[in-house]
């Protein structure tokens, strides 16, 4: 893209719990690196990365936005991600393609539930991280308490590289433990000016104590550094930084910095830490090539290293549709690609021609002619490439490790206000679902209604709003419904014969299928064990299609059936009367009959709920959770408040916020996120079935 050497590129994400200050920190980074000439504020609705109307109106980040800046001769590509759990897909796909992340936690609350979720996601993709304890200017901020929550909740070796000087409104700067100096910010100039000075005398002992911890921990991963220490009794700043970088990349420990982005303190050293400790594309082991079917995943999998001269390999991780067409965001892992080149979409097995290419700056774009290993760019003109697809050179058609997408838990029915808008709405929803893999679209086979499934009420509300604003489709929506699923709890073998041979061209097909339950989240698995051509090969796809279509409408209450295996073991056909259609019909009927006898059950989403309440309302909150079929997991006190953690069925959580507010006079708050699917109790299942009848 540019002449920046690979070792001077950083591809990083900024991730955290909602309202921890991700967008505010990104805004300061853009200001201090000279990309923007004034600082936008979330509450003023004028930040660079929150460019959607809905983001500016609501003061939250909904979609991840990519921006690029330069700092000390390095290029930093940053993706600012949303904090709200409903938009977790954005964090997921960003972390998948980044080499490192800045993980922000709040100086008052410490690690919050969404911080934990994002942390685990970053673990899944082995993303090296530096932690920034933000908002140290806030009343109630406590660096050491927030720091302690890193160990308690994330179970990590957190390693302070800085200590705060002052706290709350007295917070003026930080002690840099690597160089053993104080960094103090001056007033005015929006924090751009700061100076070094000696560590304040009253903090010197504490600083020495923490520097020893830093040396102990960091040098444990650097034998040459240990030797230098034994030789000289200390190590150079260069050696210490090298050791910290090694430990950060391996995950042996997580460096911790601090400040207050809103009050413009601590951001410049954070940028230095991004350069010093987070990896460049050449410092990481390379992305894994997907395991072959049946092959176990592990360290033996081939990795693609960042090399501009290698055959091209890239991963499409985000799609957006705007007035200019479809933009496909691609992380380039290897090779070089020019506009006009062709590549293979190895996931789908077809060729794609690259039209124009852009470097994105939030919603603005700059055309580029070439991308190389390590770059993140947006391509225009790809015909059929979706999120998670690999683009690769024909001479090395690799498929990169796939992305995992979250399970939608809430359904709403949606129908256009006018008949004329039906087609327009369907096309618009298909485009929106193409952009967002956590949004699913299906048609209810019985009612013919379009059902949208999403991650939460806010997620679906934003989609309906976009439908109206971006596509001009006014739609009526049903009340949010729990996204129930159906499955089976015992194995059953069913034989079904479909026969219509009453003169003229007839229909004949017989299938014998074993239906078996699978563990949660294993999906639907098909196996063909037919021998001797009892069901001719050309009819097997029709059997699969029949089951797939019918599984969308479960036998109990019409919800999609999941987590089962079906094995086609036998069947019969007729030379003249058998057809693909006859086998599809037979498979559908076999499913309907077989599932009923395989002890079908309804599954419901169970949510992890965390409520923060003043101590005097704990009794009410816990009692109310019990009435909602909640299982209390634990309670923890934090100052004068209590944090109650519970697992509660989603069905019982609709409208919870107003109840909680009235119970606690508006003093409690809660967060929730999907945890797992569980069978619903018999009485609830009866209610659900009666409603669907």
């Amino acid at each position, binding site marked *: 893209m540019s002449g920046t050497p690979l070792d001077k590129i950083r591809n990083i994400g900024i991730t955290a719990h909602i309202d921890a200050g991700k967008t505010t920190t990104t805004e300061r980074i853009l200001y201090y690196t000279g990309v923007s000439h004034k600082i936008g504020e979330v509450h003023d609705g004028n930040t660079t990365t929150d460019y959607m109307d809905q983001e500016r109106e609501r003061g939250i980040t909904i979609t991840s936005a990519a921006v690029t800046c330069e700092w000390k001769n390095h290029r930093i590509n940053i993706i600012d991600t949303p904090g709200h759990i409903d938009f977790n897909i954005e964090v997921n796909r960003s972390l998948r393609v980044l080499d490192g992340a800045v993980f922000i936690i709040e100086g008052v609350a410490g690690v919050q539930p969404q911080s934990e979720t994002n942390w685990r996601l970053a673990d899944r993709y082995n993303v090296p991280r530096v932690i920034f304890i933000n908002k140290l200017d806030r009343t109630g901020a406590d660096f050491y308490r927030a720091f302690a929550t890193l160990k308690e909740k994330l179970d990590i070796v957190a390693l302070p590289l800085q200590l705060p000087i002052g706290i709350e409104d007295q917070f003026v700067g930080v002690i840099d433990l690597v160089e053993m100096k104080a960094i103090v910010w001056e007033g005015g100039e929006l924090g751009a000016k700061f100076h070094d000075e000696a560590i304040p005398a009253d903090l010197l002992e504490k600083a020495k104590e923490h520097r020893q911890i830093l040396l*102990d*921990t960091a040098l*444990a991963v650097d034998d040459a550094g*240990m030797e230098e220490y034994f030789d000289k009794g200390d190590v150079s700043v260069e050696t210490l930084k090298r050791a910290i970088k090694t430990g950060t990349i391996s995950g042996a420990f997580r460096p911790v910095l601090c400040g207050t982005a809103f009050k413009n303190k601590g951001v410049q050293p954070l940028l230095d830490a991004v350069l010093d400790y987070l990896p460049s594309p050449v410092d990481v082991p390379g992305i894994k090539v997907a395991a072959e079917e049946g092959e176990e995943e592990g360290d033996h999998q081939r990795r693609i290293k960042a090399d501009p001269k290698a055959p091209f390999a890239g991963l499409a991780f985000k799609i957006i549709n705007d007035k200019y067409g479809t933009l496909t965001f691609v992380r380039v892992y290897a090779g070089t690609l020019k506009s006009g080149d062709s590549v293979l979409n190895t996931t789908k097995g077809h060729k794609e021609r690259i039209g124009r290419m852009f470097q994105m700056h939030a919603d603005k774009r700059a055309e580029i002619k070439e991308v190389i290993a390590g770059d993140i760019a947006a391509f225009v003109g790809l015909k059929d490439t979706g999120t998670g697809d690999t683009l690769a050179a024909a001479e090395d058609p690799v498929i990169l490790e796939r992305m995992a997408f979250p399970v939608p838990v809430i359904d709403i029915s949606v129908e256009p206000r006018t008949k004329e808008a039906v087609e327009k709405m369907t096309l618009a929803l298909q485009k929106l679902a193409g952009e967002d893999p956590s949004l699913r679209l299906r048609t209810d086979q019985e009612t013919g209604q379009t059902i949208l499934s999403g991650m939460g009420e806010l997620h679906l509300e934003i989609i309906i709003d976009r439908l109206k604003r971006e596509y001009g489709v006014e739609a009526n929506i049903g009340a949010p419904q729990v996204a129930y699923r159906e499955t089976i709890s015992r194995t059953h073998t069913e034989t079904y014969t479909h026969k219509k041979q009453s003169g003229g061209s007839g229909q004949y097909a017989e299938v014998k299928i074993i239906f078996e339950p699978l563990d949660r989240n294993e999906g639907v698995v098909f196996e063909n064990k037919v021998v001797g051509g009892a069901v001719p090969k050309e009819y097997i796809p029709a059997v699969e299609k029949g089951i797939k279509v019918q599984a969308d409408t479960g036998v109990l209450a019409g919800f999609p059936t999941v987590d089962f295996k079906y094995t086609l073991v036998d069947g019969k056909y007729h030379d003249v009367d058998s057809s693909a259609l006859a086998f599809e019909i037979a498979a559908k009927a076999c499913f309907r009959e077989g599932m009923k006898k395989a002890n079908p059950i309804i599954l419901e989403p169970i949510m992890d709920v965390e409520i923060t309440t003043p101590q005097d309302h704990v009794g009410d909150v816990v009692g109310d959770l019990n009435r909602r079929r909640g299982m209390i997991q634990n309670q923890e006190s934090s100052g004068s408040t209590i944090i109650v953690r519970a697992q509660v069925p989603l069905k019982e959580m609709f409208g919870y916020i107003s109840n909680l507010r009235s119970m606690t006079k508006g003093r409690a708050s809660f967060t929730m996120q999907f945890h797992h699917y569980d069978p619903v109790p018999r009485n609830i299942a009866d209610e659900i079935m009666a409603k669907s009848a």
Partner: protein
Amino acid sequence: MRLRWARGRGTIETTTGPRASEWLGLDDAGNPIARVIHLEGPVQTEHGVFRAIALDQEAKLIRLLPLPPADGDWLAVIGGRVVGRAAAPLAAVRRAEAAL
């Protein structure tokens, strides 16, 4: 007593082949009189799985610990005796020197 410390064995033969890190504390004559040692990865033996280990000069096992101890899995060893534990090698070195 301050010692001169030098890299010890990078790899120690065990049945499952985990990597061990070892530092030797040398006296003025250059003789190893203390060591700090840490084993990465569990060791599987017929008696179970062990997470931390100490070995003597002949690489004979002198201590096996089923879990990384809360006070650290770097062991400070003098002769055949574990004299302290720490979360990091430098801290274990200080424990060994303090015990001399």
